[in-house]
């Protein structure tokens, strides 16, 4: 994938970040992403992201599990090898509920986690560009993609005026690649703590 130019603004408080996100969006800039150390509720709405459909996928996987269990067991016990267990009915639905339930949960959970990793491009040995090493510690890092029309210096000043404690221009790969984190990665600097 091609490299792109980004303007990066770091905030140290989510209460400052929210108005800044709003202002950046009204000003017409395209927010590439905001990297936060924890899930900041409402930030996705503030950024105008659509709701995730992951739970719908989970529901479908669950139904798939239910169907698999019921169809397999009923085929095995009524068609393939009808085992006589104490003369009880071959189609013993109540006795199949536990396994059906377990497979529903198993399919839903495994399917959702795999989907989550796939759509978020998360896997062992995957490497991505990190705009700031402290974005997993205590900084909320807003990254704005530059177009030909963007004046990066103006944008930096705009971010700083809206409360960014650090601003930066970076040219970076936006996708993922297979790589190692112990190579060419910024070393973490133990910065003095900032008042929250």
């Amino acid at each position, binding site marked *: 994938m091609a490299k792109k130019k980004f303007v990066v603004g770091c905030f140290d408080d989510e209460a400052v970040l929210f108005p800044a996100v709003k202002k950046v969006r009204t000003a017409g800039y395209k927010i590439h992403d905001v990297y936060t*150390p924890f899930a900041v509720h409402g930030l996705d709405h503030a950024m105008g992201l659509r709701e995730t459909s992951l739970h719908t996928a*989970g529901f479908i996987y669950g139904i798939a599990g239910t169907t698999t269990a019921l169809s397999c067991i009923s085929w*095995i016990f009524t068609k393939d090898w009808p085992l006589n267990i104490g003369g009880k009915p071959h189609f013993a639905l109540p006795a*199949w509920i536990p396994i059906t*339930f377990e497979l529903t*949960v*198993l399919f839903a959970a495994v399917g*959702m986690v795999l989907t989550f990793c796939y759509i978020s491009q998360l896997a062992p040995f995957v490497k991505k560009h*990190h705009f700031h090493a402290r974005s997993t510690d205590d900084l909320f890092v807003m990254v704005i993609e530059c177009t030909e029309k963007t004046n990066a210096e103006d944008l930096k000043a705009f971010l700083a005026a809206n409360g960014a404690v650090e601003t930066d221009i970076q040219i970076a790969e936006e996708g993922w690649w297979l790589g190692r984190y112990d190579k060419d990665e910024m070393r973490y600097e*133990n910065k003095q703590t900032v008042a929250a």
Partner: protein
Amino acid sequence: MHLKYESQLREPLVYGDKNYHQVTEDIVRPIEAKPTRLWYIGFYIAVCLLLFGVYAIYRDVTYGIGQWNLNKTVGWGWDITNFVWWVGIGHAGTLISAILLLFRQGWRTGVNRAAEAMTIFAVMCAGQFPIWHMGRVWMAFFVLPYPNTRGPLWVNFNSPLLWDVFAISTYFTVSLLFWYSGLLPDFATVRDRAFTKLRKRFYGIAAFGWTGSTKHWQRHESLSLVLAGLSTPLVLSVHTIVSFDFATSVIPGWHTTIFPPYFVAGAIFSGFAMVQTLMVIIRKVFGMEDYITMGHIEAMNKVIVLTGSIVGVAYLTELFMGWYSQNKYEGYTFWYSRAYLFSPYGWSYWGMMACNVLSPQIFWFRKMRRNLFVTFFMSIIVNIGMWFERFVIIVTSLYRDYLPSSWSVYYSPTIWEIGFYAGTFGLFFTCFFLFAKYFPVIAIAEIKYVLKTTGESYKDKMGHLEHVSVEVFTHSGHGHTVVENESAN
């Protein structure tokens, strides 16, 4: 931006004047520091126990399970007792992380990570017992339904023992996924501040390339919530199904409809006791008193006294039914084999009663709930009691069945049965020591998320909100934004 406002009257969940960076520092510090002497000693003991267990298993596989003292009619002895015991312990982690998440219990954040780890390790230990009890363990895969050349000959889907195979393996898989997906952001935190090459590389792989993107967080939240929703019935189903192993049989003492809720309550009871044992140690050794507070300990002790009392009611109900049914086999099992102190196994029944029902009542007193020594001592007592419970259920029902001619001689374990059990302790603690050294033992991102609503220093600043009317509070941009801006000025 927290919609939630918590009254100042509630105890803070995080003590001290913390900010986000301080939280990272506090929790990651043990990972970056060299292990202490105490860690090495503990780890060494755990590995020794594990090796002894491996040798016990080696003898079991080589010479067969005749190495154990199981006899006719005590075909299930220490092995299945230990299996149920470990599975029970494995219930607290998912209860804390899933059910308490759905119930919006804020205090779960401090303890969920370690409790989930405990769950996974406990289920690993539990799984060993039915597997090695098979004797011809190289045929263990026969329990799986797969098309085979023997017919195909399928497993019996109507059997509770097969339900157990599905329940335990599903439970293990789902708990592992839940735990690991929660660990991703925290591994990324450790990775991004690592300054040794090895650590950077290891956590780089472990964190799956997590960046903290808002979209990823949004999906992560959705994933956690749905996994919690799935795990909640799952955790209840697992011990229900374990209880079916007994309840669907026609053995007096097992054949009771009360088993599912009674087993689930017992599982939560013993699970919380094990969590307490580990938490009291972790908070002391790693200096996590600010995160695993007295409030956390007290909350868990409340769960212990509640579930202990539920279990107590179940014991009494069983005794009552043993008499009320007027079934002489039931009566014999409950009133002679169990409740009569001078019957061969009467000691185990009264050990169970003393440990599980009587002694936890001490937690009705707030002073006792907040006493670390009492908590630690009681957590051990409860686990001993819960081991007795499973032993009582299994052995006292089996050693004398319908035919007096096949009544067994007194069953006591061999050193290899005990060694196997000790070995699972070794496995459990080896895993736990490694976890405590290399993993963030507290969910860093989740603590940061609740910091501004429940952190001590933030709570102190909320005084004036207590006097604000509901209208003003709800229409002033979620309350907190206002406070935070004011305090920043």
